[in-house]
């Protein structure tokens, strides 16, 4: 690893859980900890896209792990599959601890604003300089996923009707993280330290990221809408302060509703891994019965927003 920006020999290599599309390892070198991620064969997107996005985000000062080396641009890759090595970031990722442990008492009141600021920084990335990113209309995308599931969910159809009838005015598209939420962030006693899991980064409406972090599933039982700990205004004000763009609460909630439908459809997909025999797992099977949580949230949101509009 010498010559790749990593000091000294590799020690105490340890496998971490890391998702379906990649292996994740942690190791020490010199006096520092690093994280290595290696793509599994057949992954939907080349990890080098993510490396380019991460490097751009870090250069703009967004809270991300710093990539110290990767196979991007290497003529011969010693690990076979695409990989990247990042400086490890100290802190906690487990949502329930962030929401409840005393260690994070000072972090919770500032987290929503820090998330808003970080999103604005990410949305400033020059996505035209990065190959391999794509974008599509999110309503059409999830209507298609609904059809592909082969299931009928009248509640989501009501949500799709509402989303189509109440589309906010379009915004210039930018690079959106795509999965910025509690569970995918590292938090320490002072708040947000790093945003992880950039696999779903794509081109889209900036409000998509803001809505996603408000979906009830990502509140993990917290009482407030933004990551369970913050109010809508804290997120929106911080986003405006950093970006200059004002997103209204109603626009935010349109995207929160879309995110709620999206997570419902992802629950269907996860249960399908079990039902189709890809992975036999009672945990995945049970997720199929979480779809109705999102149907409930979607209908409640529409009821609230319809009452507000009258």
């Amino acid at each position, binding site marked *: 690893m010498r010559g790749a920006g990593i000091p000294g020999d590799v020690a105490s290599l340890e496998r971490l859980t890391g998702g379906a599309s990649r292996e994740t390892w942690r190791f020490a070198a010199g006096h520092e900890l690093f994280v290595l991620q290696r793509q599994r064969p057949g992954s939907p997107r080349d990890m080098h896209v993510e490396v380019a996005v991460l490097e751009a985000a870090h250069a703009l000062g967004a809270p991300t792990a710093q990539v110290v080396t990767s196979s991007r641009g290497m003529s011969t890759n010693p690990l076979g599959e695409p990989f990247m090595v990042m400086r490890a970031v100290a802190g906690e990722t487990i949502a329930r601890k962030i929401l409840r442990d005393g260690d994070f008492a000072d972090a919770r009141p500032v987290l929503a604003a820090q998330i808003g600021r970080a999103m604005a920084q990410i949305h400033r990335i020059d996505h035209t300089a990065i190959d391999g990113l794509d974008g599509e209309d999110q309503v059409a995308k999830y209507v298609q996923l609904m059809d592909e599931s082969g299931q*009928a969910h*009248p509640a989501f159809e009501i949500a799709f009707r509402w989303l189509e*009838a109440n589309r906010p005015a379009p915004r210039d598209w930018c690079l959106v993280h795509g999965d910025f939420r509690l569970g995918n962030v590292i938090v320490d006693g002072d708040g947000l330290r790093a945003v992880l899991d950039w696999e779903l980064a794509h081109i889209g409406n900036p409000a998509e990221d803001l809505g996603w972090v408000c979906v009830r599933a990502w509140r993990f039982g917290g009482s407030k809408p933004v990551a369970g700990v913050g109010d809508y205004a804290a997120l929106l004000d911080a986003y405006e302060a950093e970006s200059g763009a004002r997103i209204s609460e109603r626009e935010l909630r349109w995207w929160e509703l879309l995110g709620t439908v999206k997570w419902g459809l992802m629950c269907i997909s996860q249960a399908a891994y079990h039902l189709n025999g890809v992975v036999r797992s009672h945990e995945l099977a049970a997720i199929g*019965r979480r779809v*109705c*949580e999102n*149907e*409930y949230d979607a209908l409640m949101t529409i009821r609230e927003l*319809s009452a507000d509009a009258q």
Partner: protein
Amino acid sequence: MTAPHDPPTAAQLTEAVREWLESQVMPNVSGAMQFHARVAVNVLAMVEREIGLGPAQAERHRTGLVALGCADDAELARRIREGAFDAGGVESVGVVRVDVEAFVFDSVVDKLRVANPKYLR
């Protein structure tokens, strides 16, 4: 009511397994195994609730679909998407007719009463 089967009922059998998981397995395992044991306990509790509530819910669902002139959820979903249930001046919640929204909402509440009653607000 479960003839020709002898006692215990399906619900009582499920309950027995759930209680064994809770009292004997959960305290003696940790980490990922404990997490997966808790998922199993939750799944069995869900099955118990469905055995108890399911038949009445199914009957109510059938009646509601008939009132809307739909054979099943697939037809209801398709007609909502086509705009056949848009309110168009009639009383509405959001876009669709108030009676359609109320039926769908009640169905979702029934699903949650089985899947995760604590989720209801």
